[in-house]
């Protein structure tokens, strides 16, 4: 499917979902509204309807206008499947990071995420720098924020006995 068509469809679908499903379900109207003040769902509904119109225009132009092709996205030449796999891997890393915070604590979770991300960027040399960044970086930042600004970082259920 051409990119402009897909884009138009995504825009229309998102704003339609908001206007016809999310606004009625998640924007409750209060029993009493003072004076002539518009209800709370007026603005999100208006914006969502405007979004549908804009998306429909984008879709219309995608079919009718012969627009010049979008600039190709610069890549390392990997196949689309491989890039999708990398993206999925990154999403898994993000989710695992959020899940790991209450279990392993903020410090360890951040160390693991940083190490994971550095490796995911394809960096394999500079071992010392990778170690410094993944392990030294979070320790330094935690020390800074804790001592200078008094931030209390969450400790993990599993790592609490070790102090972090």
């Amino acid at each position, binding site marked *: 499917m051409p990119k402009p068509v897909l884009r138009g469809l995504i*825009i229309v679908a998102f704003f339609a979902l908001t206007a016809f499903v999310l606004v009625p379900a*998640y*924007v409750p109207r209060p029993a009493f509204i003072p004076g002539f003040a518009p209800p709370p769902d007026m603005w999100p509904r208006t914006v969502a309807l405007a979004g549908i119109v*804009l998306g429909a225009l*984008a879709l219309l132009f995608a079919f009718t206008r012969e627009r010049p092709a979008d600039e190709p996205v610069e890549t390392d030449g990997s196949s689309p499947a491989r*890039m999708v796999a990398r993206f999925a891997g990154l999403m898994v890393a993000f989710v695992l990071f959020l899940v790991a915070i209450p279990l392993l604590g903020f410090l360890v979770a951040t160390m693991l*995420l*940083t190490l994971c*991300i550095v490796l995911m960027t394809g960096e394999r040399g500079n071992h010392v720098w990778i170690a410094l960044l993944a392990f030294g970086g979070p320790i330094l930042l935690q020390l800074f924020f804790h001592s200078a600004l008094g931030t209390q970082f969450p400790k993990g259920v599993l790592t609490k006995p070790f102090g972090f």
Partner: protein
Amino acid sequence: MFHEILSALVAVATLQNLLIMIAGIWGGVIVGAIPGMTGTMAVTLALPFTFYMEPVPSILLLVALYKGSTYGGSVSAILIKTPGTASAACTALDGYPLAQQGKAGKALNMALYSSVIGDFISNLSLIFFAAPLAVLALRIGPPEFFMLMLFALTTVAGVSGSSLLLGLVSAALGLLLATVGEDMYGSFRFAFTPDMQAGLSIAPVLIGLFALPELIKLVVMRVAKKEEAATLGAQHVTREEFMGSLKAILKGSVIGSVLGAIPGIGPSSAAFFSYGEAQRSSKKGANFGKGELEGIAASESANNGACGATMIPLLALGVPGDVITGVMLGAFMIQGLTPGPLLFQTNIHEVYMLLIGMLVSSVLLFFAGKVTMHMFSKVSHIPQTLLTPLVLLLCIFGIYSIASSTFDVAVLLVMGVVGFGMFLLNIPAAPFLIAFILGPMLEENLRRALAISRGDVSVLLSSPITWIFAVLILFVLTITVRREIQKTKTERRLAQ
């Protein structure tokens, strides 16, 4: 007034403020010099630190970062032909050829002198024009404010990215996201989780939207640029060379100041406009693009010239002209200051401190640029594969420290993915952010206007000022659509 300026001068001239400004300028220059790191990133990453500072030093830090990074962008543009910031793209056209001729130091010096002069003139324009504009703005009510913000939003949507339509879609997404949380009458909207009842904080949304997509791009597409940096070589700009470029510097400074004050235009467009104008009017116009100092002078004076001027609509009207001033608006609000006409009445001392601090930071920019010139070629060599994860680390710790909230960290990551999705779909991010920040004010003014007029929508066109803004909105829409049609025709002709 003289007494107030004097007392503000005394308040600014503390060691703490000077150190903050030096750190900001220096940090900004370094960040701007690193390809892939932008001024927006520098300002957004510093935002969490400002929570713990006094209002004026915190804004001065952000302004100093903005100025430093705008100049710093020219460094990698000159040394490795990779503009550190978009506004330095024109600088690369003449800077890199000069570096190849062994005159990188000369080019960097000219960029520094032009940036400092442009910045100083821009700050003067801010001092002279912000207050009168604020006085004028005091006479306008909710319908006028609504139309003004709509105008700012339309302009930003029009000039960001390649399509007005996609700019407007981006703005609509930002407006919608801004409705999450409690509204002005106490209703909870889109509160899918208890954390969302308080709404989404500005910091994780904007940092996620602007800093994280770079990381995701690096992981998914793995495009890390590696360029060889030129050595500094000949350094001094002679008196003749400086005087020969002075006209371009002054013209660029004025162009930057004027264009910077218009919401949505910003430093990049000012630099391109000034470069084109200098090339057109210069006797050496044919040498532009081959290593002409005048080209660097025109581009750099205009992009730094726009920095101070972008603060005019922000301070006087409370309307951010670009992403960085949008971040600053967030910083003002976090500090309990509301930019706009009332700021000049309720916090005049802070306003004068800010204006004087900005003038002082122009001088500091000169010294920071001079001192750090020799380390520049090393800074430009930091591999992105290490730098970008470091940015993520700073983002995560910075965001968590603001409210000790894991939910905010989750918002940061989700917004990074949203930003990446927008990048893939060619939807510009700037209108999204400006709309997210202006959204609550836009809605509040609309609802107030409708409440006052008993639900009559024609209140939005009930005064000459609202009509002026309506005409301006139509004007912006018309010229943007016209420009797009012309561009499409030209591209089609070239393809044939």
